[in-house]
C-alpha cells in the first residue's frame, strides 16, 4: 500500500509524499534565497534610504540616492565606459566564440586538445589573467611593445593602459574577452551540434556552397545559442571588475560601473548610493538581456 484510498476509491497520497518535493527543494530555495533573493530585496529597499555610517542614522530619502548618482560625473563616466566594455565584450566574444565553435564542430584528431586549450582561459581566475596581461601590456618590459617594435609598427615603447580612455578600455576588455569566449564557444557549439546533418546534405544536393549553407542554415538555426552566449557575455561585461581593478586601478578613464559601485560603497561608505547603483546595474542587465533576446533569439524546432 503506497497510499490511502478515499471513499470514492481514488488513491490519496500520504501527507509526507505531498511535502516531499518541497522538502527536497527547500535547501536549494534556502540557498538561492540567502544568496540572491534576500540581498535583492535588501538592495531594492535600501536604495531608497540614506545608509551612511559616517552620517547616521539610516533614514528614508526617496530618490535622492539616484539623483546624486546621476549628478556624479564619475558615475556618468563609468556608465559610458561600461557601455564600451559591453560593446567590445559582446561583439568580440560572440564573433570569436562562433569561429571557435565552427572549428570545434569539425571532426579532427586535435579536437580534444583544441577544446582543452580553448577552455583553459575560462578556468583561470580573472585576477590571475589580469596580472598575466598586465605583464603583456607593461610599458617597460611588456611583450606587446616588444612584438610591435620588432615588427616595425611602433618606434618606441608605449604606455597602453591609463593614457587614452578608448585604448585602455578596449585592451582591458580584451582580457575579459579572452576569458569569456570559451563559454560563448561552448554554448554556440551546443547549438551547432543540434542542427540535423540532413539539412546540410539536402543543401549540398541542391548545389549550395559553404557560405550559402552557413548563411541559410547555420546562422538562422544557431540563433538560440548565439542569443544565450550574447546574454552571458553581456552580463559578464557589464559586471567587469577584476580586470579593471588590476590593470587600471581606480583611474576614472577605465572605471566600470562595478568599480564605481565598490568605490561608493566601501571607500566612501555611502552604502545607500551603492545599493542604488547596484539596482540600476541590475535593471540595465535585465533590459539589455531582454533586448538581445528580442532581436537575436528565435525559437527553432527540427
Amino acid at each position, binding site marked *: 500500500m503506497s497510499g490511502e484510498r478515499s471513499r470514492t476509491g481514488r488513491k490519496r497520497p500520504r501527507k509526507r509524499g505531498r511535502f516531499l518535493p518541497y522538502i527536497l527543494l527547500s535547501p536549494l530555495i534556502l540557498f538561492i534565497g540567502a544568496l540572491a533573493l534576500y540581498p535583492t530585496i535588501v538592495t531594492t529597499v535600501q536604495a531608497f534610504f540614506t545608509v551612511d555610517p559616517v552620517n547616521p542614522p539610516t533614514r528614508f530619502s526617496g530618490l535622492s540616492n539616484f539623483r546624486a548618482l546621476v549628478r556624479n560625473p564619475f558615475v556618468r563616466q563609468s556608465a559610458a565606459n561600461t557601455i564600451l566594455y559591453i560593446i567590445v565584450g559582446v561583439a568580440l566574444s560572440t564573433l570569436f566564440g562562433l569561429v571557435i565553435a565552427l572549428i570545434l564542430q569539425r571532426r579532427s584528431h586535435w579536437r580534444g586538445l583544441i577544446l582543452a586549450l580553448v577552455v583553459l582561459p575560462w578556468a583561470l581566475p580573472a585576477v590571475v589573467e589580469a596580472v598575466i596581461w598586465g605583464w603583456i601590456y607593461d*610599458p617597460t618590459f611588456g611583450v606587446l611593445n616588444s612584438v610591435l617594435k620588432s615588427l616595425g609598427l611602433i618606434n618606441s615603447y608605449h*604606455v597602453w*593602459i*591609463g593614457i587614452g580612455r578608448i585604448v585602455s578600455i578596449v585592451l582591458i576588455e580584451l582580457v575579459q574577452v579572452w576569458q569569456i569566449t570559451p563559454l560563448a564557444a561552448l554554448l554556440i557549439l551546443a547549438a551547432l551540434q543540434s542542427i540535423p546533418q540532413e539539412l546540410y546534405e539536402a543543401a549540398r544536393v541542391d548545389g549550395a556552397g559553404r557560405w550559402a549553407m552557413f548563411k541559410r542554415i547555420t546562422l538562422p538555426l544557431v540563433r538560440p545559442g548565439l542569443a544565450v552566449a550574447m546574454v552571458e557575455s553581456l552580463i559578464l561585461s557589464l559586471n567587469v571588475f577584476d580586470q579593471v581593478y588590476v*590593470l587600471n586601478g581606480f583611474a576614472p578613464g577605465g572605471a566600470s560601473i562595478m568599480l564605481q559601485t565598490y568605490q561608493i560603497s566601501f571607500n566612501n561608505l555611502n*552604502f545607500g548610493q551603492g545599493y542604488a547603483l547596484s539596482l540600476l546595474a541590475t535593471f540595465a542587465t535585465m533590459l539589455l538581456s531582454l533586448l538581445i533576446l528580442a532581436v537575436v533569439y528565435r525559437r527553432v524546432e527540427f
Partner: protein
Amino acid sequence: MTHVRSHTQGRGAAPVLLALVVLAALVVLVAACGSSSGSSSASASATPGVLPSPSPGSSITVVYHYPAPPASVLAQFTALTGVKVNWVEVGWDNLQTKIAAAAASNTYFADLTDVDWSKVGQYYKTKWFTPLNSYFDVATLKTDMPQINTFASNNQQLALPFDSSFTVTTLNTKIAKAAGVTTTPATITDYNTALSQIKAKGTVPTPLDIPFAAAEGLSTYWYQVTAAYGGQVLDASYNPLFTSPSSAGYKAMTWMVNAYKSGLVPKANIGVADYQGFTSEMAQGRVASVFSDYAGTVGSIYDVPSTSKVVGQVQYIPTPGVSAAAPNLANPDGIGIPVTAKNVAGALAFIKWFTDTQQQAIWAGLDGPSDVISGFPLPARVSSLQLLTNKVSGAAELTSLLQTSRPVFPGPGAPPWYSQFSNAVYTNIHQAAAGAETVQQAVNNIASQVTQLKASS
C-alpha cells in the same frame, strides 16, 4: 468535481505555507549571522595603564596587512599570557573593505586590526573601534610615541601606533654622483637642478619616481610636496588651501604634473602605485630619487640584496623645502580593537606586548633578521629606535625625523570624509598627469568635492 477542486486548493496551500516557513527561517538565519556582536570581557571603566587579565587558553585573531611575526616570537606572548594568536595577513586595500563590511553589518571580524591614520576621523564618527583611553595612559606614552596623537579624534584614542611611518626623501647617491651631483639638494630649486642634471647626463633618463596610479599613494605624495612648498592642503576647519595658484598645494600639484610631462618621471608611472615604484623602479636603479618615500624603505627594500640592485646606494636626505628642509608628514599604521571583538582582554594584552619598547625594536631587527616582521617600517617608540642605532640603516637620522614629523592634518586630524577627499585628490591628479584635465581643473574639482563633503557631514 467539488471534491477535486477542494483537494487542489488544499495542495496549493501547502507550498505557500512551506515557502513562508522557509523565508522566515531564512530571515532568522541571516539576522542571526549579522547580529553576532561578540562579547567583551573587559570593563570600560578600567584604570588607564591597568589592563584586565586575559583568560588563559583563550585566543585572539589579528587581521593585519603585514605578515605575521615569527611563530616562535608569538609563542612568547602565549607563554606570557596564555592567549593564542591567530594572525591573518590581508592586503591593505582588501583589509579596509573587510573592516567596513564587517563593521557595517555588525559582524565579528577580528579582535585586533589595522587603524590607518587616514581613517581615524571616520572611525570616530562610525564608532567602529573601542576607545583605548581607559586602558592606556596616552599622555605618558606620547613622550615615547610621537605619532600616537595621529590615532586620536576628539580626545578618543582609537588605536595605538603599530609602527611609526612618515614620508621622507630618498636619493640614490651613486647615480647622483655619477651625474655630477655632489652636494645634497637642500631646497626644491636645488632638487630640480639635480634631477635635470641626472636626466641631462643620461645616467638615468627618468630620475624621479612619482606614483601616478589613481591610489592613496598619489594623495600622500601631494600632501608631502605641499608641505615642502610650505603649506598644507586643508586648514583646521577643513577648508581647501590649494585653490590659489600661489598656494603651496597648487604649486605642489603643478610641480608633480610638470615633472611627469617633462619626462623627469617614467611615462609608465601613470599606472604605477607607491610600493610598485619603490620595488620596480627605485630598487632597480631605474630612478634616482623618490621625493615622498616612506621611512624604513632603505632597510626593508633598497638594501635587500635578493630583490634590490641598489644595495648601499640609497640614503635618506632631509626633504627639500622652499628655503630649507621641509617637515616630514606622519602616515603610521595603528592597531585597534573593533567593537565587535570577542576577546577584548586578550586584545589589550597583545597591544601592550606588541608596542613594548623591546618588542618594537625586535620587529625592526634588534635580535637579527629571523625575528623581524617582513616590511615593518620603523618602531613606534623613540626608545626602540635608539636601541637600533648602528643596527638598522639610517636609524639615527630616522630617530630625529620621527620626533619632528607632523600630521597631514594638524589639529583636528583626518576628516571623517577623508576617503572621499583622497579619492578626489588621486583621481584628479591622475587625470591631470594623463592630460585629461588641467591642474586648474583638478584643483577646482577637488575643492568642489571638499565643499560638498563639508556640507553633507
